[in-house]
């Protein structure tokens, strides 16, 4: 459900009209629109945003770890529409144990590396990703460094 102040926003309203069940909440803060989306529907929502609302660019995908809160992980998609000269942020919240979400590589091929980066540094698995390997760290690396509970001070000897 969208909050009242977002009903006027064209993009948010169009998304709500497309699939009301997919939109969990939204906010418009400091001139930036953020919409929370159900993780199961991310591919269809992104497809709609790209093909019907003109968000042709996926600027980046970032992960956020809210440890120890639950749902722990957030996958954040930063979209950009050139025609509307508008930016939009989509968020999906994922649980701490075995975080998984569908890959949006079928919508934007460019999502490939961004999702690999999120997988590498946060350990979020992207289903149906064509090539889900580590990208920054060596293949045999243990753990996911951008998680908040990752040991950064080294082991005590």
């Amino acid at each position, binding site marked *: 459900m969208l909050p009242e102040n977002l009903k006027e926003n064209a993009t948010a309203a169009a998304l709500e009209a497309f699939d009301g069940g997919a939109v969990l909440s939204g906010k418009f*803060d*400091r001139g*930036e629109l*953020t919409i929370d989306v159900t993780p199961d529907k991310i591919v269809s929502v992104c497809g709609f945003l790209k093909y019907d609302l003109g968000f*042709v*660019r*996926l*600027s*980046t995908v*970032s*992960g*956020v*770890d809210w440890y120890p809160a639950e749902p722990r992980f957030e996958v*954040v998609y*930063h979209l950009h529409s*050139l025609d509307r*000269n508008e*930016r939009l*942020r989509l968020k999906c919240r994922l649980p701490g144990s075995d975080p998984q979400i569908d890959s949006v590589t079928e919508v*934007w*091929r*460019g*999502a*490939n*590396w*961004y999702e690999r*980066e999120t997988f590498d*540094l946060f350990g979020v698995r992207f289903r149906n990703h064509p090539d889900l390997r*580590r*990208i*920054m*760290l*060596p293949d045999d690396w243990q753990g996911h*460094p*951008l998680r908040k509970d*990752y040991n*950064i001070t080294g082991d005590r000897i």
Partner: protein
Amino acid sequence: MSDLLTTPIPESEAIEASGAKPRSLTLNMGPQHPSTHGVLRLELELDGETILKCRPDIGYLHTGIEKEFEVKNYQQAVTLTDRIDYLAPLSNNLCYCLAVEKLLGLEIPPLAQWTRVMLTELTRLNSHLVWLGTHAIDIGAMSVFLYCFREREDILRIFEMYSGQRMMTSYFRIGGLALEPPRGWQQRVRTFIEAFPGKVDEYEELLTNNRIWIGRTRGIGYMSIEDMLDLGISGPMLRAAGLKCDARKDQPYSSYEKFDFEVPTRTEGDVYSRYLVRIEEMRQSARIVKQALEGMPTGRWTADAPHVVLPDREKMKTQMEALIYHFKIVTEGFRVPAGEVYQVIESPRGEVGYYVIGDGTTHPYRVHVRGPSFGNLQGVPRMVEGTLIADVIASIGSMDFVLGDCDR
């Protein structure tokens, strides 16, 4: 045995007899190949000289900068942004500062905004000069490199004059500038910028109508706009294919809307057109610098926000309040309200984005950096597959990536 040595066997028969099948050759280009300007490995699958498949391997320069942001306070973290894209440090400084300033709701005085514009445009010149020099040297035009580095030296001296540092300037701080603009900067910048368009003519004389240059670059490394948008490519590459897309015009920041400049575009989308676009960008940047020089406002160089900006030494020694603020900012840092901001600017390489999440403390909760090189490099396979191996160097050179920016 002697028969075998003396009677030549036709090649095709020999292959058939051995039962071997024609197969492709896998070649590792990098991680230490000189043309990658850093540590990038391209795994190329070749059929003769044609590239069948290309798999870029990155991460050699990964330094965990995003993690390091979380243990620095907001102002300290500015120094990390320099090291992300070491050819455009000020662009990264600016983007990060704008993001945090947006979280804080700070108003930046005009002098600081204009100085920021002027220095980021000089950074663009600096970065394009390094690109042009190294791109030309990769393709075989040695002397351009020397010319470009001659001008780059002047720019680095200007940076040194401003900040005391040639490369890792960290000159933009949250709330404005690190120091007051130095005495006599106008003269230095004027001397440089008045001579600069003539220097660009010199580079063009060496390259633009050079038959070898055109032969090596025209029609090479083509990519369509659709492919580029889909793969997340931004910046001059996109403009060379005909899409007028520049954050300085579309979402102006730091008073770019007050400057008069063109966004150059071409339609060919090949290596040569990217060269022409960047050359024209240099001329436009010079125009912006000139406007900034002539219309530079006066006033303070830091925002009126005592809880964020360090007080003057004079005030600190005479006013109790200032001393308290100084102590708090230095020991603890300043608190930034909870919230999130995704700030985008146009760096020399394309779209730089900083996603900063604040949780109300003195340290950023999370900073994600969208480096343009990371997005652009994703397009390498699309650009080089099906072309000849000799063109790989021209193609990836035209992307103008910095591996530090890619791997972070």
